[in-house]
């Protein structure tokens, strides 16, 4: 690991100021992804600005019934927060299905959003990777692709975003507050992460001195249900092969509100708008007949899927997981 300059951020504005004007700067939150990358040589910042002690560690219930989550709130504290457990079960379950208890006690909201892909070639300095070293090529294409994308990938990168939390937040229409050198701005969570295109080294629309300060969740109307389904290679402590965050409100036997996001399938949390369009306004009564519309919705979304040699299984897996998530919600299962 190359030596770096460590600075404890004095306050929120000071954090941004300390990170401005440096090429190789990074904010240090829980460190569970960044320190790993520094050990591997994937990241080599010259300056680390420690934001872990900033007063961004509160979860506040907003007057409109929504929630403001500070950027340094630990994943464990967020999952355990009474308002999250009561009003946003999709988020609590997404968090609790990620990593382990002793990792979640360090991991933060901001760091979780900005964690980088688990593509094995990205983490291995001995192999070409356009995300790590632009222009060197993509080792995954034609290589091991079990963990890789089926939607929105490019000829330059087929990596997936590994976060569970971000998938739940995408389905919840979360808004991300960012403080940068030119002030504060709000970015819809679904626009925070990018598709790889021809610039896979850019995971998000942020620049290095942009500090995430909070994530806000709008309130869910009375009668809305939500859940998170994660499918992985072992029962616990593994990243998602496919995951589904779903939010559903059925009134008088008709779908009034539905929001679905998929994890493990794309370079970003994948909001399934096509599936939502099929579902909105459809009759749903908790009977086996619902299955048909759920399947049509999932298939509409996955019509554009382009699986790779090693991950064709993800297409039916994603379809079945969407159907099972919707079935669970329409029948009040978890």
């Amino acid at each position, binding site marked *: *690991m190359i*030596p*770096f*300059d*460590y600075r*404890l951020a004095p306050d929120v504005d000071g954090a941004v100021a300390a990170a401005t004007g440096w090429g190789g700067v990074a904010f*240090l939150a*829980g*460190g*569970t992804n960044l*320190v*790993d990358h*520094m*050990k591997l040589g994937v990241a080599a910042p010259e300056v*680390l600005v*420690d934001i*872990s002690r900033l007063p961004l560690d509160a979860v506040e219930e907003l007057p409109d019934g929504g929630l403001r989550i500070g950027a340094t709130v630990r994943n*464990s504290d967020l*999952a*355990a927060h*009474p308002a999250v*457990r*009561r009003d946003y*079960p999709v988020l*609590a*379950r997404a968090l*609790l*299905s990620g*990593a*382990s*208890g*002793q*990792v979640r*006690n*360090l991991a933060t909201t901001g760091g979780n959003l900005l964690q980088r892909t688990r593509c094995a070639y990205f983490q291995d300095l001995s192999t070409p990777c356009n995300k790590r070293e632009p222009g060197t090529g993509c080792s995954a294409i034609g290589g091991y692709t079990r963990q890789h994308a089926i939607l929105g990938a490019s000829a330059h990168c087929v990596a997936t975003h590994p976060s569970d939390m971000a998938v739940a937040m995408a389905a919840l229409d979360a808004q991300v507050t960012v403080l940068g050198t030119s002030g504060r701005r709000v970015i819809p969570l679904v626009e925070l992460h990018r598709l790889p295109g021809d610039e896979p080294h850019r995971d998000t629309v942020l620049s290095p001195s942009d500090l995430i300060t909070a994530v806000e969740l709008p309130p869910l109307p009375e009668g809305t249900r939500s859940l998170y389904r994660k499918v992985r290679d072992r*029962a*616990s*402590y593994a990243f998602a092969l496919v995951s589904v965050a779903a939010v559903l409100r059925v009134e008088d036997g008709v779908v009034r509100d539905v929001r679905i996001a998929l994890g493990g399938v794309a370079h970003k949390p994948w909001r399934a708008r096509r599936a939502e369009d099929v579902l909105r306004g459809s009759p749903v009564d908790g009977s086996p007949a619902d299955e048909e519309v759920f399947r049509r919705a999932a298939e509409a979304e996955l019509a554009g899927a382009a699986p790779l040699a090693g991950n064709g299984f993800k297409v039916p897996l994603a379809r079945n997981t969407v159907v099972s998530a919707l079935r669970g919600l329409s029948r009040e299962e*978890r």
Partner: protein
Amino acid sequence: MDSEIQLRVDGRRKRLRVDTRMTLLDALRDGIGATAPKTGCDHGQCGSCTVLLDGRRVITCLTFAVAHDGADITTAEGLADGEWLHPMQRAFIERDAFQCGFCTPGQVCSALGMLAEVEAGHPSVATDDLTGPVELTDEEIRERMSGNLCRCGAYVNIVDAVRDGAR
């Protein structure tokens, strides 16, 4: 770049100079000689480096020591009262919950951190009702302890030990 930090480790105050690149795990083991936490994977994947940091279980291999100035740390060694082992440590012995013992200090710290989470009513992904009380079933123990791998595969007895130690 070096930095001076202060830690309280197993009840004793320690002042030490650390290279900013030093992980908390290396500071404990090499800087202070607190060798109960073990270097397993060194990448956050096995849990053998788990300690209680200000009372909460954390891995120590993916966090820099310099970021923890002033922290209060309990390693598995600090759980015992001299020769008198902590009930969770005794449960591991009585249940034969290890073979080589390499993962055990992390398992024991993790188990105690986990029990405090259960005590506080925090659900896990294995909990049916997110807002209800938590009952420490074997399924809950397995899920909540999944961040601690055991290369010797003593899992069945570890679940027994944690169940006993929770009493």
